[in-house]
């Protein structure tokens, strides 16, 4: 089976790994998967600044992995340039997919306020922006959620991509994997504020397997099937207040359009 249709078996697909504003964890994850050398042999790395000095912006690639949220004007310019030069653009990790933890104050504080609280009167020549997910600005062909993404999902995506297809994205929550992992449910048992029910599966309930309630790092379940309202109602019954619930759900879900309306539904009216 031809790997990349246009060139059959002759050429290796070109890959670019780019960072906007982030912690570099997704790239680190990608660079340190067990089979990295196999990947490196199967593809041509055009750009991967974190790892290689032979990196360039603006070269044409078959797939661009973009990490990070759009948080400066320069990020935005670069993102648009990357999009122009890539056949497939993959949003890699929580920042790119959901805007990342830097969006925690979304809706509460604007950029000016954030800036003033950190830099005071100090002037910086570069222009920052409120953090936003990549898909707010360009077309994204595939989402690899996670903070950072999971190795098996990265590998599945890459092998499927090389094969000319892509994995069917997960549209169910962490709870399902929590159950399959044989964990007890700490939401039922201890009333802990677990976000597993609204968080995209894929981590095999990593935190729950450590008795740590999920903080939702993989972002809300896509396709509007993150039922914040049902969960908020449940949390409310367990004694958590609106602010707490909202704060927790917003760590990785601040840009989900259903979040606020669904919370309003349970708590009535906007905050």
């Amino acid at each position: 089976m031809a790997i990349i249709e246009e060139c059959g078996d002759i050429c290796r697909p070109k890959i670019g790994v780019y960072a906007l504003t982030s912690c570099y964890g997704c790239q680190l994850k990608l660079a340190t998967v067990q089979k990295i050398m196999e990947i490196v042999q199967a593809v041509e790395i055009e750009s991967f600044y974190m790892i290689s000095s032979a990196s360039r912006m603006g070269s044409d690639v078959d797939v661009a992995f973009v990490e990070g949220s759009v948080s400066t004007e320069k990020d935005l310019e670069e993102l648009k340039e990357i999009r122009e030069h890539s056949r497939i653009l993959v949003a890699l990790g929580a920042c790119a997919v959901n805007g990342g933890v830097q969006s925690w104050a979304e809706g509460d504080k604007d950029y000016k306020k954030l800036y003033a609280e950190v830099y005071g009167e100090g002037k910086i020549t570069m222009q920052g922006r409120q953090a936003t997910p990549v898909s707010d600005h360009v077309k994204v062909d595939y989402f690899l959620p996670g903070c950072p993404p999971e190795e098996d999902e990265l590998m599945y995506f890459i092998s499927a991509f090389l094969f000319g297809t892509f994995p069917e994205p997960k549209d169910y929550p962490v709870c399902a994997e929590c159950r399959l992992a044989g964990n007890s449910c700490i939401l039922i048992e201890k009333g802990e504020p677990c976000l597993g029910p609204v968080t995209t599966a894929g981590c095999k309930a990593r935190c729950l397997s450590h008795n740590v309630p999920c903080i939702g790092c993989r972002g809300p379940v896509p396709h509007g099937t993150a039922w914040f309202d049902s969960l908020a109602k449940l949390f409310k019954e367990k004694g958590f207040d609106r602010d707490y619930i909202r704060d927790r759900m917003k760590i990785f879900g601040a840009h989900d359009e259903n979040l606020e309306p669904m919370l309003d539904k349970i708590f009535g009216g906007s905050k």
Partner: protein
Amino acid sequence: MRYVKISKANTYKFLERLKAKGTLYAPTKISEKFYDFREVNDVKAVQFDYNRTIRPPRRFFYPARETMFTFDTTKVELYENVPEDETIILFGVHSCDIVGLRIVDSEFIDENPDPYYKKRRESGIIIGLSCLPDEYCFCNVRRVDFVDAGFDLFFHELPDGFLVRVGTVTGHKLIDPNMDIFGEITQEDVDYMTAFNEKRGEMFPIQGNWDDLRYFLELRRDHPMYARESEKCLGCGNCTLTCPTCRCYDVKDIPSIDGMTGERVRVWDSCQFRSHGLVAGPHNFRPTKESRFENRYMCKNAYNKDTTTAYCVGCGRCTYFCPADINFRKNLMEIGGYKEAV
């Protein structure tokens, strides 16, 4: 049927001996409130008094994730990944779960047998255990509170030990060489069993049977219960993944990096997930949470002709393990118009 008895102390010995025959799994306490069938290292950790395990027994014969085939894409060959020769011994299975397994059998073995399930199941050993119901149990109205097939041995509680029903030839083979620890039953034991069963029968939160329930489900399809309860639903799939009779799975091909080989795996799926009813197009046959919610109520209450019961065996898992506190039994009673026992 043959009956023998065994003391509690000897039961531990028996469990120890079972470990030599295969991999022994038994109910184990995994947290304050939850139990799960786990491999037995220390027989003292086996729990005889438990209500339900968080994962259903079917997982031993039908694992949550399994590689069905490896393949060679160049030759277009599939290589069946036959399960290993391994005797799986499940100790402490309640009647509802035994019927649950038989329901899965009827779907996975009787017609177009699933080779993976069949092989594991045929070399598996099932040892039943009597139980007392809690407020979540309703196997009685499902008519599966007492089983007469589907187990090799069945342990019924006695004051100190168990009265054991021997169900199969395999069961006999487990007893015969161990007669040093098993003994013959007495009339007293039989009387105890009657009394136990009577007490047990009275403890169920509801009485009667629900044979007509599926008709009411159909007659009350637009019942407001669905909208009201599905509103609470998290769509997390816990109800189906813990259910002893749910069987849905998804299949995916995972190619290797060089694309030459790969594996075809199947993983448990759930009708509560959006993609379950999704087809290319994209069109979704169950587009709303409510439609997915209702689907389960229909499926679980449909009639299985082989076990002559509903697909739901009344084990209570889907309620007990529902993070959103949706009570399946009560909701069904609302549909059936049944009254709660007083």
